[in-house]
């Protein structure tokens, strides 16, 4: 039988994590499918499990002086239902498009980044929110900015004795948006997704942060575009987007799509996401 730990306190959880080689279990929406696939091809082995679900203190969203704190066990549904400023509109649009309601009810914000899938819908949002990840271990607590947290294709900076305990987002005046492109409506993995946060003053952009997912091993910020948008009018923003602004993406061919398509669709979606801020029709996802 697979060993199963379900500690009631973070202290106990960190002690188990320090002593045993365990897989952390949160909402299970990535852990179980991966296990089912291995079992189907005759590989029944599984690490012992550290179930975090009894650590209720790690669930929930709270406002602090200069930042917002999202406990690691906060679910997509928690995010959808929370009363949050427009800065989080994009992250919440993403939450509504994750899987179906069942997945949103269980899947956690931290689980999403720990899986570090190139198609993880939360990741581009967190990039545009300049989020930091709070990692805890018996050694202490450290904060890692999202770009440093995700170190590659399904790879993260989480050490063997660490647990993600929260996501921290600095307060900012901006507004967020998110667009996802998939081959069906629900339960679909993104072919491309785009997140944006824009701060504007009387129609002029004062700060822009944009990120594209599913177009490289790790979702990427579009820093050249962000610079180009600085000071421009919101209404002109879509037209400013140029092919070169997305030159850093490295989309691949896979079962879902082709690299050439992704590159071009990313361009279209970046323009669309900006057009949304300008008050253009809100695009619905295909």
């Amino acid at each position, binding site marked *: 039988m697979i060993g199963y730990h379900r500690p009631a306190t973070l202290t106990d959880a960190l002690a188990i994590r320090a002593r045993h080689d365990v897989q952390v279990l949160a909402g299970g929406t990535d852990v179980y499918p991966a296990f*089912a696939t291995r079992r189907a091809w005759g590989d029944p082995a599984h690490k012992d499990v550290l179930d975090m679900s009894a650590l209720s203190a790690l669930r929930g969203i709270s406002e602090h002086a200069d930042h917002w704190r999202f406990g690691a066990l906060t679910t997509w549904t928690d995010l959808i239902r929370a009363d949050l400023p427009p800065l989080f509109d994009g992250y919440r649009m993403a939450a509504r498009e994750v899987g179906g309601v069942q997945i949103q009810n269980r899947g956690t914000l931290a689980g999403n980044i720990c899986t570090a899938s190139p198609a993880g819908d939360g990741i581009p949002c967190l990039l545009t929110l300049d989020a930091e990840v709070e990692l805890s271990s018996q050694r202490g607590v450290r904060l890692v900015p999202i770009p440093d947290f995700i170190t590659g294709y399904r790879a993260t900076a989480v050490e063997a004795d660490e647990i993600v305990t929260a996501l921290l987002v600095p307060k900012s005046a901006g507004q967020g948006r998110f667009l996802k492109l998939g081959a069906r409506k629900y339960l679909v993995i993104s072919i491309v997704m785009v997140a944006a946060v824009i701060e504007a003053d009387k129609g002029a952009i004062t700060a822009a942060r944009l990120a594209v997912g599913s177009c490289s091993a790790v979702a990427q910020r579009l820093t050249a575009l962000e610079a180009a948008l600085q000071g421009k009018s919101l209404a002109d923003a879509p037209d400013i987007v140029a092919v070169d602004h997305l030159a850093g993406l490295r989309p691949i061919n896979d079962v879902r799509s082709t690299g050439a398509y992704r590159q071009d669709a990313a361009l279209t979606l970046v323009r669309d996401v900006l057009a949304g801020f300008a008050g253009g029709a809100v695009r619905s996802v295909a």
Partner: protein
Amino acid sequence: MLDKPQATAPTIPLIVNGEARQVAADPFRPLSDTLREGLGLTGTKIGCEAGDCGACTVLMDGAQVCACLIATGQAAGARIETVEGPGPDGLTDRLRHAFLAHGAAQCGICTPGMLMAATDLLSRNATPSHQDVEDALGGVLCRCTGYTKIIEAVLMVASPVAARIMEDDTGHVGQRIARLDGLAKVDGSDRFGADIAPADALWMRVVRSPHARARFAFGDLEAVRAATPGLAAIFTHADVPGENSFGIFPHLKDQPVLAPGQVRYRGEAVVALVGTRDAVEGLADAALPIHWSIEPAVTGVDAGLAEGAPVLHAFAPDNVLARGNLKTGDVAAGHAAGAATASGIFTTAFVEHAYIEPEAGYAVRVGDRIEVTACTQAPYMDLEEVARVLGLPQEAVRIMPTACGGGFGGKLDVSVQPLLAVAAWLLKRPVRIIYSRIESMASSTKRHPARIVAKASADATGRLTAYELEGDFNTGAYASWGPTVANRVPVHGAGPYKVPNVWNRTRAVYTNETPAGAFRGFGVPQAAIANETLMDDLAGRLGLDRWAIRRINALDHGDATYSGHRLASSAGLPQCLDALKSDWDQMLGRVASHNESGARKRRGAGIACMWYGCGNTSMSNPSTMRITLAGDGKLTFWNGAVDIGQGSTTILAQMAAEALGLPVAAFTLVVGDTDLTADAGKTSASRQTYVSGNAARLAGEALRARILKLANAGADAKLTLSGQVLSISDGESVRTIDLASLRADADGVVLEGIATWDPPTTKLDADGQGIPYGTYGFAAQIAEVEVDVGLGTVKVLNIIAAHDVGRAINPTLVEGQIHGGIAQGLGLALMEEFIPGRTENLHDYLIPTTGDMPAIKTYLIEDPEETGPFGAKGVGEPALVATAPAILGAIRHACGARMTQMPVLPHRLWAALKGRA
């Protein structure tokens, strides 16, 4: 809480449907498993164990969740509501009744999940919008219904208007009665393949080839068995007592039960492990001494047909399994006579049936007989296969079908049956198996990928002068239904049109890919894509409306088909087209005015027709039905036709009841057990309504004739059954028969009616000429789509479908078939592509969800079929065929892209629009 790993399963407290329960379970086991195996609550279904299908949806602390993604340990102390409970404030109970009344459950395997997701929605939002319902049910897949009636049912509960009153009196032909097997489907008590097994059954797990083509040798398997506690046996091909082979056609039993030293596709069965559940699930494949030598695989028909290609089967040295041919007139002359000619090459992908119930069942040896209980579409074919594989006479085999959680052709071939039979026979112990989703998808048959080269010509008025088709169908590693596809396509390939000169040729080609077999339409949907696109091409070249060119050419009463069959009776395509005419004109108008804005989202309208022969092609395919009256007044309908959700149990009873003259409610139903019911043939080829319907009608008439003769009553006499007294009122006079006073046979039966019916067909000659079917279903559908020309995405907005069904025995069930067919046609056109080893799960293999369905309107055209029961024909397959080409036509109308490769995924449409295909 648990803070230490334990050696034995701890006891976990759960509050299930309001009741505190304690269950001993491995805390990491999914809650779905614990509910089913630990608490016996099998109403919660398992379709994927990966969050992809939603069949396992339950409420946990009031919110819908996938029970397969929850560790049992995580649910400790939580409130769990399952389909077996009434739901908060009785909501689940109210939903059940609405589902039943609206025909929202077909096969019923998704129903528990749907009910729980809907319970979640209505418990937070008493008046949801259509969109709210789509969102709430978006995580539960249904492969049968197209979601339309499910959403209707949920909105109905939500609306203040009371649920619709059911017609209840006689339940005869034409009435929208609720499915007779429906109650069990909505209350979670229906028993599917995975839901029942003897308590002492051993478990089986099949070890499958991870390679598409390889040879292998075994090391010391017995040493592994001996070293694995709880493992009773490791069976290999050498253990199969009879013939180690199966297949649909008597001369093509080319697929081994267990591979004898070589495998021909990824997913092929190599050994079967039997033992305790922990033993078979805990033993890694890598722990078995199987020494592989991998060989280069043949992928795709071109590779199969290539000079010097590796040969799959010695009896087919060119890798061609079967050829089909139909020739009439002179196509060269026909093309020359045309004012316009169009041609094209069209390709389609492997398509997975994606029934939500993976194959499952159990077998028990009873003395010198074997009994196999499993989900199936074809119990008598299973019986023959099992007898051969065990080397037993057919009388020694009994097949007891469970409820079947979707089939669509994929459960016509045996899967678990021979494996279970071999194990239970040899071990003399009951043995059960449940395929995982991935195992089901990797091992079971698919729709044939097609490459169709076609050419059509028409004269200046639009009349077709010639049609030519060459189709290559990838039949995968084993024959399955490949020959049927090769034969059906030539007969239907030029569409439901009058064409004087036709030459259609097909080949089914072996490759090292997943076997392709039967799937709703047997190759006709693929051929219709080519055919209908060429019709649009011709209309464009000749300056004709796309509706008009179809109307001009539509087969009509008295016309001869290109196989030389003069349609003496039902041929309702002209009526179908006429029914759609005003919708078509409106749609064209709507689309044009939308597109005036020049927006990036362009709309388009498309139209397609179809026809489909009911029953086997030029082959006897009889059905036998029996109705008995016992001395105690028990009226029993013995019906061997398997209901895979399409509703045969209900409509056959409606027809039997009408023919006999007693209400449906008077019948006790016995369905599908080969020891009890006669062979009704398989549930495929849209034949059960037409063929078994006739047998049911004739059996009813035969029993009625006996009764009337006994009572000396006239043909119009009315029957009433009350206890053991049968009253026959004929005008003024009423006679009564005390059934107990009649002489009974050993089973207590005093009167019976038995009838067999076989559709009138003739052999086809070498040019495909003859009478291949007794009758044909016809349909026309129009589709309205919106294409985002920037992203290449397509949203289907509306589909309007007109189907000539001869007679709608139960209009609700007919509509359900059409809705479900449309969903599958939409999937075929836009998203479904099975790639062995890459899309073998429901995460990567996409089927439509609630949010992908268009609004659907249906017209049921009833052009009665003389040879059909009460005028009826089949609709199961016709539902699907016209949808994909109608969508393709609409896409082209919207944005100009003539798509010839299925599915039209966004990147393909985008590439076509950019001209870089």
